[in-house]
């Protein structure tokens, strides 16, 4: 097992290298010019050229990529073209809000979606099942930003229960921290809840049709025991796979949610950087996201062995 983990961790290195190359190439090929953004509308073409040269953007692709890669190897993500701050510092400032939002969303989604899916499967064909599926279709169909605006309108503007926007770090108190993340987590989690609930229902339906469940019922085990101890554990592998895949969904959704609720996270940092063509920041954030995604997949693979002891690496 340890050898497998070590192999998988080492395998992230070539993956990251490929990602790094693609990110750098795409940015190199993509149109846009940070020098022109910096210079402003009154600048002459000569001013823009001078700024481009001062930023080193006039140098060949290979030179820029090699330098960047060498710095990455040394743990240096570079400096933002615009803010002149180290990219690692900017990411460090933004990582807490995004991590908090994603963790709360995942916990919320699992706590809501898994029981929903289990109950829907248990009561398959009933009004409960139909209600859960209707909710799932609704969750899939409504874009995150619409859910966000509606929630903010109802719970912040009309009822004044929660703030419209912003983020308060955990260090400034638990309630202020949570207060700012409740609406964003529900908005971001709606698609995720729908996804997990549907998969849980489908997988549970399959498991509940197995012979051993019938045997358990024949032995007189209670519904709760059958559902949560025997059936759910066997359905956990596909559910955890979907949760892992959903992390990518969350990263994409976080970009929108952070904009709607003005949360200073990595999603907004990415969008701002892309609009300005702040290359070092884009490269740093995309590398981080891909690294996290690789690690999440590794964690999910390892979780399989917990849910299903037959799986060995």
């Amino acid at each position: 097992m340890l050898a497998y983990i070590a192999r998988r961790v080492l395998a992230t290195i070539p993956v990251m290298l490929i990602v790094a190359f693609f990110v750098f190439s795409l940015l190199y090929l993509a149109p846009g010019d940070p020098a022109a953004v910096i210079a402003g509308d009154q600048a002459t073409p000569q001013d823009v050229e001078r700024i481009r040269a001062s930023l080193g953007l006039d140098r060949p692709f290979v030179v820029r990529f090699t330098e960047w890669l060498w710095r990455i190897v040394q743990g240096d993500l570079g400096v933002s073209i615009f803010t002149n701050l180290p990219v690692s510092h900017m990411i460090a400032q933004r990582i807490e809000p995004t991590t908090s939002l994603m963790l709360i969303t995942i916990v919320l989604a699992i706590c809501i979606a898994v029981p929903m899916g289990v109950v829907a499967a248990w009561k398959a064909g009933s009004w409960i099942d139909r209600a859960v599926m209707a909710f799932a279709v609704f969750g899939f169909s409504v874009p995150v930003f619409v859910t966000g605006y509606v929630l903010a309108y109802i719970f912040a503007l009309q009822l004044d229960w929660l703030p419209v926007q912003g983020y308060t770090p955990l260090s400034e108190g638990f309630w202020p921290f949570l207060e700012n993340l409740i609406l964003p987590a529900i908005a971001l989690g709606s698609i995720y809840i729908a996804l997990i609930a549907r998969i849980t229902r489908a997988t549970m339906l399959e498991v509940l049709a197995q012979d051993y469940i019938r045997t358990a019922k024949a032995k007189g085990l209670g519904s709760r025991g059958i559902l949560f101890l025997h059936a759910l554990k066997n359905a956990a592998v596909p559910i955890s796979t979907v949760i892992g895949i959903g992390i990518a969904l969350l990263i994409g959704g976080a970009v929108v949610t952070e904009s709607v609720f003005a949360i200073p996270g990595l999603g907004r940092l990415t969008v701002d950087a892309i609009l300005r063509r702040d290359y070092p920041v884009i490269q740093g954030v995309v590398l981080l996201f891909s690294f996290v995604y690789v690690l999440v997949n590794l964690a999910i693979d390892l979780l399989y062995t917990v849910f299903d002891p037959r799986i060995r690496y």
Partner: protein
Amino acid sequence: MKRRDVLKGGAALAATAGLSAPAVSQGVAANRVLRFVPQSNPGSLDPVWTTAYVTRNHGLLVYDMLYGSDAELNVHPQMAAGHQEEDGGRTVVITLRDGLKFHDGEPVRAADCVASITRWWRRDPMGQAAAAATDEVTALDDKRIRFRLKAPYPRLIPTLAKPSNGLYIMPERVAKTDPFQQITDYTGSGPMRFKREEWITGQILVYERFADYVPVSSGTPSLTAGPKVMNVDRIEWRILPDPATAAAALQAGEIDWWEQPQVDIQPLLRRNRNIVVDVQDPIGLISALRFNTLHPPFDNEAVRRAVIAAVNQEDVVVAINGNDPAGYTTGVGWFTPGTPMANEAGLDAFKKNIAAAREAVRAAGYRGEKVVFLGPTDILAPKAASEVMGDVFRQIGFDTDYQAMDWGTVLQRRSSKQPPGQGGWSVLCTSFAGYDFLDPLVHSQIRGHGDQAWFGWPNVPKLEELRNRWLASTDLAEQKRIAAEIQAAALQAAPGIPLGHYKQFTAYRRNLQGVLKGIPVFWNIRKG
């Protein structure tokens, strides 16, 4: 009692149970904290390195200026006690007033001013003209700055008082930074100190009142002139990129002032009696179309001129700013309405007649070449103007390839001199602050110096000749006459087309008193 009060009570209870309580703006009383949503997220905080208006506004808080301009663009001493002219106007000596200090406690010296001037005037067009007129600028001692001019240059002091992207005084150690490199030390001598330690890019910028700032003792606060008296102790710039969220936050009282509410949200805000929606800066902005004069069909002056006949400025400015007549002006030429150089010369070319324009385009020799129109998608005013003008171009018979792209891509594409079919462009729309169109000295759109000119690179020697005549003139009446000639010549050669003037609205909570018109400044404001 509202539900939220109950929740807050719960939070207080939790705090007593050992959880830390939220910091309320670092212990500053609520009515001494101003929460402001700027027009965008200031990427850079160096107002020389970038000309972004949001960075200019940051600069006005943190830095002070030698001279200020009032709303009528009259010049008043600010850090300067005054100046004297010697040697028939060929030498100008500016004396600093007493008590000026930087935020680090060091006194402001003439050497700091000289370094700031020489950094700034390498980048700013108006500053560059002053630099070209100057043989030498030196610090005579700690209090006096001497300009030795090549010839008397009456625009020197107005140049130093330029309100938009003007001269900010920095410590010499900071101002020695190459103007094409960013500064990293934000020490100024303005009324507010930037708290770098609380800066989270994309979320918040914090300023605290500079206790040692000494405002000028007389005058009335107006634009960048007069006493800069701060009635709040802390200003927080909250970055809210989503307009609906900013609107909700303003209505909920989570913010006090939103610099640029989007036009479609303004009616919602106007209905709220706790919110004031008003014109922020009467100088406003001018929407403009620009042709690439290097390639067909717009290398043909007659084709360019023919387009003017189709333009209805009202269509453009209403699309940009809504149909409130207080928010726009039509019948606008190449100078900012309401300022001395504004005139009506050549405006009869705007016939608002699509059929006539179509015929004129054909008669001018248009041969069906593809017209690449760069249409930005993420900057509201240029987007609206481009969409209106893109439709006009189709109606008057151009084979228009309207290419929608983000603003960053427009900025890159417009610098390409390649033919339109090979990554170049034919036409684009943008907006300029009224301060950039005050006179021929600062104006970029009525130049005709070919390769050196603004994107589009028109080569119109007559425009340059007229500009030189204007620069040589010191008589206002003569300057106005020449400005009218320039406008007529610019509408004849048509390197671009003025598309109308509009004024940006701002929105703030009614308990803010003393918000000044013009560039958003924060002195004089009281929060009730």
